[in-house]
């Protein structure tokens, strides 16, 4: 542990105790969450089995927030700052600190409607590997309207921005998304719905999966449709099931050096080897909650995702394209000792099957720790 990290932990502890003294009183709009989870990760790089490296890390987080709602005017405000420290034991170069600023505000300007604005800013700070530092901002604003008591329709806009301030080569990512969601309440416990999203995106969300000319900024459009349903069953069980179809089309290139655009017939070929472009995706995800007792709750979350890259050839000249099948499973248990203190267990498995062997990987995480909310 270096001096820099140690001083941060100290600062964190001072914040914890200082804030608990200040805000630890109940019935006030301030709140604080604190957690310390010890994890073992079997494959920290998400690479092929022959190359994988295991390590343990400790995750601590501290969230200090302010939450206020006014029932009469139907206004709600929630803001918080969260500090997350993820500290590896052997590969300290990947140890990092995350600073998250979150704000959510909603108001009902007229009957049966709501305007909701959320912003989440996150800064990832690698003290030992500065070019990997990035900040990301996600701004979401939507209008929700309730129709005929049972229907809710949301129309919204979301903006993503991701920048690597210490890197010369990694391009910024940005996307503008428009979405429309319709939800139908079947009864007091069941909702079904449909979500459509159309987006324009520029740059790479995952810049390390790119093998293009670094002077080119790819631009694409993406459309996704999601069908979902969720229900509470017999007071103790909750289930959420979703199916998503997504398709991405490369549209254009912007040349950083010359400032030119070229959306010619080569576009798809140039983007052929880019994980963020030119694919179709089918995804099924599900969450299941079981509230076994007042003290014990179990939660599972799973994803099966199939991704077909339309022009990413396995071998030059042959007609077989890259296809991935991702499987993700998260199993969680929470045991409440006291009203606000819980012991958490967590197991995650992520497995990607790909016909391109360099993208095959499997990684699992086991975690145990304490969470305190007050």
């Amino acid at each position, binding site marked *: 542990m270096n001096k820099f990290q140690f001083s941060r932990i100290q600062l964190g502890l001072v914040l914890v105790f200082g804030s608990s003294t200040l805000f630890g009183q109940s019935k006030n709009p301030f709140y604080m969450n604190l*957690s310390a989870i010890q994890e073992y990760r079997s494959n920290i790089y998400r690479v092929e089995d022959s190359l994988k490296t295991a390590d343990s890390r400790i*995750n601590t*987080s501290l969230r200090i927030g302010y939450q206020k*709602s006014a*029932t009469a005017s139907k206004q*709600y405000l*929630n803001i918080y700052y969260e500090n*997350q420290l993820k500290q590896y034991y052997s590969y300290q170069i990947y140890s990092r600190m995350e600073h998250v600023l979150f704000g*959510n505000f*909603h108001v009902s300007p007229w009957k049966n409607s*709501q305007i*909701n604005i*959320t912003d*989440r800013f*996150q800064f990832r700070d690698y003290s030992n590997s500065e070019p990997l530092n990035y900040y*990301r901002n*996600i701004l*979401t604003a*939507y209008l929700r309207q309730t129709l005929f*008591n049972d229907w809710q329709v*949301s129309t*919204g806009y979301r903006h993503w921005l991701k920048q690597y301030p210490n890197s010369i080569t990694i391009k910024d990512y940005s996307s503008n998304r428009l*979405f429309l*969601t319709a*939800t139908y*309440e*079947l*009864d*007091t*416990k*069941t909702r079904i719905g449909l979500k459509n999203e159309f987006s324009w995106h520029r740059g790479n*969300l*995952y810049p390390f999966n790119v093998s293009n000319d670094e002077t080119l900024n790819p631009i694409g459009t993406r459309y996704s449709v999601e069908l979902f349903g969720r229900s*509470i*069953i*017999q*007071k*103790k069980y*909750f289930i959420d099931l979703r199916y998503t179809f997504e398709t991405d089309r490369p549209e254009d290139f912007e040349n950083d050096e010359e400032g030119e655009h070229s959306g010619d017939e080569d576009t798809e070929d140039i983007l052929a080897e880019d994980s963020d472009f030119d694919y179709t995706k089918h995804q099924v*995800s599900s*969450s299941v*909650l079981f*509230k076994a007792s007042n003290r014990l*709750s179990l*939660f599972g*979350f799973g*994803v099966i995702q199939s991704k077909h890259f339309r022009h990413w050839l396995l071998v030059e000249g042959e007609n077989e394209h890259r296809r991935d099948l991702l499987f*993700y499973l*998260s199993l*969680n248990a*929470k045991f409440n000792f006291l009203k606000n203190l819980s012991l*958490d267990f*967590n197991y*995650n498995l992520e497995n990607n099957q790909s016909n391109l062997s360099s993208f095959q990987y499997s990684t699992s*995480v086991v975690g145990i720790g304490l*969470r305190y*909310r007050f």
Partner: protein
Amino acid sequence: MARATNNQINFFLHYMLFIALAMGLPAGITAQELSINSLQQIITADEDSLAELIRKSASLSQSLDQLNETIFRQKQNFKGSSNPIKRYNLNRNLKEAQQIAAELEAAGVRTRTIRHRLQENYHRIINQYEATLQETMRTTEKNDRNRSTASVLSLLDTLETNKKKYQQKLANQPFQKSEQPSLEIEPEDKLERLQLKNTLLQDRIARLRQEEQQLKYRLEDFQSNLSVYEELIIFTDNLQQIIDPEQEYFDQERMDQLKEEVHALKANISRSLERLQQIKTEKKSLEAKQAMFQKTIQNKLKKPKDGRSTDYE
């Protein structure tokens, strides 16, 4: 001669009235009459809205009663069953009952607002009539103290009648009294009347018990949903620390919806608990009163046998 004099007087008073109205004798009166007209329009509109709301509330109340009976039956039949169709029907009816209860509550709030506004406007229009009456009398006296005509009397009579009409309406407004007639033991009450009042009390208590039962069902539903959603928010929040947002397995809207549902459930629980407390207090008071009625009725029934007089408490 007398007929000629009367004709002259009539003519004079008509003339006076015409002058009064045309020349603005009564600029004030005209202004007040305009104001009275506006108030009448507002009052008529509010009375119509109130009548419509009362009709709507009665219809909603009837639907809620029927639905509550259905829910009660379904709850009885549902015990131990895991039939998803039965569960869906029960939850669907609970949802409808919640919606009707919310509509009924909103109609109640609107009814009280309109009644309050009507009360104010009745007072206002009565005062306007009173002021107009005074002004008419004063102006007539000022212009010709010794004369009076049928027209003026007719005008005064109309003003007085209208004033009384609104006074009567004001007196009939239920907000001045209790929404339901009070059921007290009066010294002059005979046995039949006491028994009738006792039956009314029993009916009121039975209705309160039914409302209490239905409210408990809804409360139970709200609380079970709340505990699940709260737990879900905690797990989803924890998972968002593990899974990077870039995976896009969750979006913010999903979390917002859960939080809104928690918020709405908490508000519903708070309202239901408040109403349950009111019902409990009201029921206790009515039960105590009913016990008193029964004692008095028993005493009345015993009276012919032992000849003792009945003591009213």
